[in-house]
């Protein structure tokens, strides 16, 4: 081939590449930013559960000084806030996702019946007030919840939001042909009625205490999706799941390009008034280091899920770090299955010895740079923890004494304690997350110092969290100690992790009581709290639960695991909630 032909071939390739570029999308128009209409004042929230230990309030970044006005007129520019998300949404239909990164958008374009503020207190959104026994919204027997909807709420296309939308959401959730993420708690509803378009009466089969933390977390528009369901027989393939052009939040969905970005623009029909920002632009950046580079370079205004080790660097670059408690606490669970796992862990003294032998304060100080606290219970930073509980101190001598008392001594001189011919060697597993691997290594050394040998095991998340039926290492009781961070149905304290009827087995392969623990006292306390609709009564029951689990060392807390948010200084009025993170996004603003 001649040189000319070679050149031609190369040019052809270049042309093909250029031709394969997609046509340019229309850039966001420069919006003449007019003063937002006066927001309708939301009704005062009814009395929210008072936190006994109030979570540390998140601090909004100080507004930076606006630029000095110039004499030459500056063309109005759209206020676009760029959020850097490390994971892309899987779907935008609130019925179909459990994904945190998807759910955080619901305060942007969808709506909950009520949100939670930065103190995790409920704030009415679609309703006039939070139901309670005092205002008649919750019946005396705790079975009936009555919602009074606001008169001015509308979908972004102007259609009024009515009780029928709630009923449609309920029906679609429990419809067997819809493979929704969870049917909880709608599968506990006996009856749902709309006496008028602005009143919704929900009747549960039994008193249902966790309603405030679980009900109406996103609704779907009946006038858009009912015809789709009627035609397809399912919402699984609805176009709206990926392009929800009609919503009820302060912003409206505009565009989502797979793997790249998503755009939400201001909803001019929003009943609280037009939001101050013109657009929220999500950019999906899966790499942590790239996320930090983008925020430091000013290409991102907001990011989350930073490693503690990156916080000083971000703060040095002028990024404000916010902390939001969302119920997550990192901790170690013990294998308490009656026939599986190491026999030593069935002894309370051995578990107590492990608690005294692990210096968790040092782990928090050295590995997490002292940026969070030591966790004592599964429910830390909620109002449900017995105030008398303090984390076990580091006391290796006491740990040794407890092990001696339990009969675990080193009889064969191999530096590992044993009893009845069984060596005290424990399998300690967790995911491959770096901070967890570091924690494992420290705890391994600390337990070795008191004569407990620990074998470390690490798994990818989707393997580690596999169910019993799928052979998950924790679910099948292969591990003696397993570590991760989870949360109850935050901000509700309910959890099924220690219920006797949740122990995985061949008959119940999806059970999630991976500790295999069936303690009748504890089980009864959980059965009690589930039906206690009165906050104070339930709180007292949880005091007993937290104290009992703490004393028995069924769970050994390591550190508080709040969500870390990084906010660029040009983003204003930012508050973050642990339960509904972007709850006041309609008030956010940008310096120009």
């Amino acid at each position, binding site marked *: 081939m001649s*040189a000319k032909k*070679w050149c031609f071939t*190369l040019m052809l*390739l270049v042309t*093909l*590449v*250029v031709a*394969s*570029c*997609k046509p*340019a*999308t*229309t*850039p966001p128009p420069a919006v003449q930013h007019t003063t937002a209409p006066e927001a309708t004042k939301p009704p005062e929230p009814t009395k929210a559960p008072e936190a006994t230990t109030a979570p540390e309030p998140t601090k909004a970044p100080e507004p930076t000084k606006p630029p000095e006005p110039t004499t030459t007129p500056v063309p109005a520019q*759209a206020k*676009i806030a760029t959020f850097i998300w490390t*994971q892309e949404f*899987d779907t935008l239909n609130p019925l*179909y*996702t*459990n994904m*945190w*990164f998807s759910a955080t958008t619901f305060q942007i374009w969808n709506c909950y019946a009520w949100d939670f503020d930065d103190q995790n207190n409920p704030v009415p959104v679609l309703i006039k007030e939070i139901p309670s026994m005092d205002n008649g919204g919750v019946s005396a027997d705790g079975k009936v919840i009555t919602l009074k909807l606001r008169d001015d709420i509308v979908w972004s296309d102007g259609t009024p939001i009515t009780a029928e939308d709630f009923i449609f959401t309920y029906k679609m959730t429990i419809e067997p*042909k819809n*493979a929704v*993420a*969870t049917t*909880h708690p709608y599968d506990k509803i006996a009856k749902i009625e709309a006496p008028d378009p602005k009143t919704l009466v929900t009747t549960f089969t039994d008193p249902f205490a966790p309603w405030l933390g679980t009900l109406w977390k996103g609704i779907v528009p009946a006038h858009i999706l009912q015809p789709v369901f009627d035609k397809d027989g399912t919402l699984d*393939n609805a176009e709206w*799941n*990926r392009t929800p052009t009609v919503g009820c939040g302060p912003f409206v969905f505009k565009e989502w*390009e797979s*793997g*790249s970005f998503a*755009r939400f623009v201001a909803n001019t029909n929003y009943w609280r008034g037009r939001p101050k920002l013109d*657009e929220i632009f999500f*950019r*999906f*950046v*899966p*790499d942590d*280091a*790239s996320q930090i*580079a*983008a925020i*430091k*370079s000013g*290409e991102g205004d907001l990011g989350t899920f930073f490693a503690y080790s990156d916080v000083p660097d971000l703060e040095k670059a002028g990024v404000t770090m916010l902390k939001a408690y969302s119920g997550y606490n990192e901790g170690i669970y013990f294998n308490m299955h009656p026939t599986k796992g190491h026999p030593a862990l069935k002894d309370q003294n051995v578990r107590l010895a492990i608690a005294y032998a692990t210096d968790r304060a040092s782990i928090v100080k050295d590995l997490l740079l002292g940026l969070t606290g030591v966790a004592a219970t599964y429910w830390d930073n909620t109002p449900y923890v017995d105030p008398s509980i303090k984390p076990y101190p580091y006391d290796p001598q006491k740990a040794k004494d407890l092990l001696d008392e339990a009969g675990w001594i080193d009889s064969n001189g191999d530096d590992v304690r044993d009893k009845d011919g069984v060596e005290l060697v424990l399998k300690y597993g967790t995911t491959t997350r770096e901070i967890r691997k570091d924690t494992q290594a420290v705890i391994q050394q600390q337990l070795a110092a008191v004569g407990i040998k620990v074998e470390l095991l690490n798994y*990818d998340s*989707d*393997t580690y*969290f*596999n*169910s019993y039926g799928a052979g*998950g290492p924790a679910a099948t009781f292969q591990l003696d100690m397993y570590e991760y961070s*989870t*949360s109850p149905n935050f901000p509700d304290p309910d959890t*099924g992790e220690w219920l006797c009827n949740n122990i995985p087995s061949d008959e119940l392969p*999806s059970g*999630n009581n991976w500790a295999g623990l069936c303690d009748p006292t504890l089980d009864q306390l959980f059965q009690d709290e589930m039906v206690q609709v009165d906050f104070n009564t339930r709180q007292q029951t949880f005091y007993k639960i937290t104290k009992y689990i703490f004393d028995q060392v069924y769970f050994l807390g390591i550190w508080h695991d709040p969500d870390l948010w990084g906010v660029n200084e040009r983003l204003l009025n930012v508050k973050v909630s642990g339960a509904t993170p972007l709850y006041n996004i309609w008030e956010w603003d940008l310096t120009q």
Partner: protein
Amino acid sequence: MTRYIIRRLIQAIPLLFIISAVLFVLMQNMGDPIATLGGRMVTRPADRQRLARQLGLDKPIYVQYLYWLIGNDWAKTDLDGDGIPETQGTRHGVLRGDFGTSLVNRGVPVVQVIADRLPNTLILMLTAEVVIIVGSLLVGVYSALRQYSLVDNFVTAVSFIGYSMPIFFIALMTMYIFSVNFKKWGLPYLPTVGMFDPNVGETFPQVVWHMILPVFSISFISYAAYSRYIRSTMLEVLSQDYIRTAKAKGLPKREITFIHALKNASLPIVTIVGLELPLLLGGAVVTERIFAWPGMGRLFLDHLERSDTPVVMGILMLIAVAVIVFQIITDVVYAWLDPRIRYH
């Protein structure tokens, strides 16, 4: 030649079956797609049971493979959990062109999931491949013609530095230098991530501007191997008798180099490019992740992490088919470049 191509295509059919079966079995051991559903909490037991039933994950592996292959529109499924199959299946199967729907992006057809990303990968990878081939041709030929010169030694050193560096290091280093620090120092700077600036829109100049760092990272580590290969094959060809004859006949140096030497030195290069091209469809996993480029590499990784069997199988089968097709194309190009080669 036509009979040869047809024979190769027929031979590919059982091969693709075996590949698909092996990959499907391997995917079943990659994790449980409904363990957390991408959330931060473990899925509730009741929801796990229901979703496994609705998504057909409770079936034995051979039944799942059969449904993937030939569909389930001939069978009924129990969706409501009463033990009685009552709902007609809707999947047509791969053999009828239906690759199913994504488990992650619930309800979105696999073909659409892949089609959304494939152009982005082609833009990035073909540009990088062109840069690599052009750059390595220039460097390789120059080095061969001026063996052991100062320039030859310099480009050899640079190419080995590139070859020995992990791509994530080059990518992050260039990002911090040319984006973060250049901006801090008040210099013109390159963007860190994505394909365009939201304030400007997805325009052609924006895409090119955002492509500079990823293309540089991919090219820098790859051009070393290509250029060294071209240099060595060129050196070998340049020492052949027919080149000496051409020189003795007084042909211009450019003609000798580019027509007689380079064409003959191209044969082994065609083999490498032929093997490389189908793999371009898989994207550059690390580069796409670091620069947040929405391509196939990221798609594969994201969906593999969540055990999204339909999408992962779709990507892998696409690459498997591409490898087979490009192998046949390579053979054809071989015959075109070297008339001595004949296929029967």
